[in-house]
């Protein structure tokens, strides 16, 4: 689910993680700052298509097929953005904003598709190193990001186990009876994760 990385040999794969992070951030920022006009929707869509077509993700239309998969994965984000903005702002800003949000997400996914988390971790650590002078620990911040990413699917599975256990005992889906046991398993997981990090030499 959260492991988007796909091995490859294209130029974006070969690009060092730090400059790649800056490049993707710049493009995403550029798309996000487009005005809410009709032409912005076209520009945002074009940026997404060009990004995937030129990223060197694979031979032929491989990049475009990957774009299709990414757009499908975030279809509800696009639909909800489009629908809510249609109601409150009208068709032109709704289409432009939905296209900008969609393009920003799929373009950001290019970073995850072409970069290993360890490389990203190193790049973030290096990028944050100047903050060490302010007393911040770049290694710890990078680790925090990684652990957060890796914990999401585990907690998702634990939530589904809690729901299954409740159904097995005849309980209906009820947020009140779900929250307490889920909180307990989440805290237990946090304890175990802390021990595991300590055991693996993390301060």
């Amino acid at each position, binding site marked *: *689910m*959260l*492991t988007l*990385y796909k*091995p490859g040999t294209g130029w974006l794969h070969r690009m060092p993680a730090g400059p790649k992070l800056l490049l993707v951030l710049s493009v995403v920022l550029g798309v996000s700052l487009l005005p809410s006009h009709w032409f912005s929707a076209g520009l945002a869509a074009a940026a997404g298509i060009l990004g995937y077509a030129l990223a060197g993700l694979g031979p032929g239309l491989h990049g475009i097929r990957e774009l299709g998969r990414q757009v499908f994965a975030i279809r509800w984000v696009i639909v909800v953005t489009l629908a809510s903005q249609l109601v409150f702002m009208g068709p032109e800003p709704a289409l432009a904003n939905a296209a900008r949000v969609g393009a920003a997400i799929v373009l950001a996914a290019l970073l995850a598709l072409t970069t*290993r*988390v*360890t490389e990203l971790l190193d790049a973030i650590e290096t990028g944050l190193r100047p903050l060490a002078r302010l007393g911040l620990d770049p290694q710890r911040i990078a680790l925090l990001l*990684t*652990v957060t*990413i*890796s914990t999401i*699917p*585990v907690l998702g*599975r634990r939530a589904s186990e809690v729901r299954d256990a409740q159904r097995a005992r005849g309980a209906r889906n009820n947020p009140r009876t779900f929250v307490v046991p889920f909180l307990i398993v989440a805290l237990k*997981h946090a304890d*175990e*994760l802390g*021990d*595991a*990090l*300590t*055991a*693996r*030499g*993390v*301060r």
Partner: protein
Amino acid sequence: MSRNGLHLKNVGVRLGDTDVLHDVSLDLDARTVAVIGENGSGKSTFARLVGGLLPRASGELGVLGLDPARRAAELRRRIAIVFSNPDAQIIMPTVAEDVVFSLRADRLPTAELEERVAAALERFGLTDLAERASHDLSGGQKQMLALCGAFVRNPELVIADEPTAYLDARNARRVADHLFEDTGHRLVLVTHDLALAARCDQAVLFAGGSLVAHGEPDGIIARYEAVLAC
């Protein structure tokens, strides 16, 4: 103090207001040690204490000749801990990256890092799964990944707390074979599986937070079975 094994003298552990381990005195220099006892007997507390995850409230403790309270960082470089729940031990999104994570603090040259990771993946049968999402693996594969992440650091001591608890017979056997394979490491194995305990050189029996007996596995297991029969 034992230079290579475990040395405990009148060691006690408190969690909140409760004494969870009291007055444990023990000197062990065996390569493999089984820790057995009923649920709540203090086995896991003992493992966590020896692994430096819990502080002692009293007494004297030496693990590989080091005091975990004073030289925790050095001890962590020399030991590895494997838990029963592999989900909590997997940190990185892919199998290979998770193994790399274990060596991250060592700042190895890239070539050496890749070589060690590849060798470890090969040894634990994970080479073909290297790019797979760690959390999508089966329970057995996850525990193999946890072992791989532990052994890639070439630990001198491996502490395994019920590492086969969630596994089927085939995977439990594979995990046990890796733990017992003599690669120069020592093993402290907390287990309810008495057949596994019998494979160890020494066994330790806990009950109610106290050390009841230690010695040759056959005698200790027989004593434990006599307690279970009551």
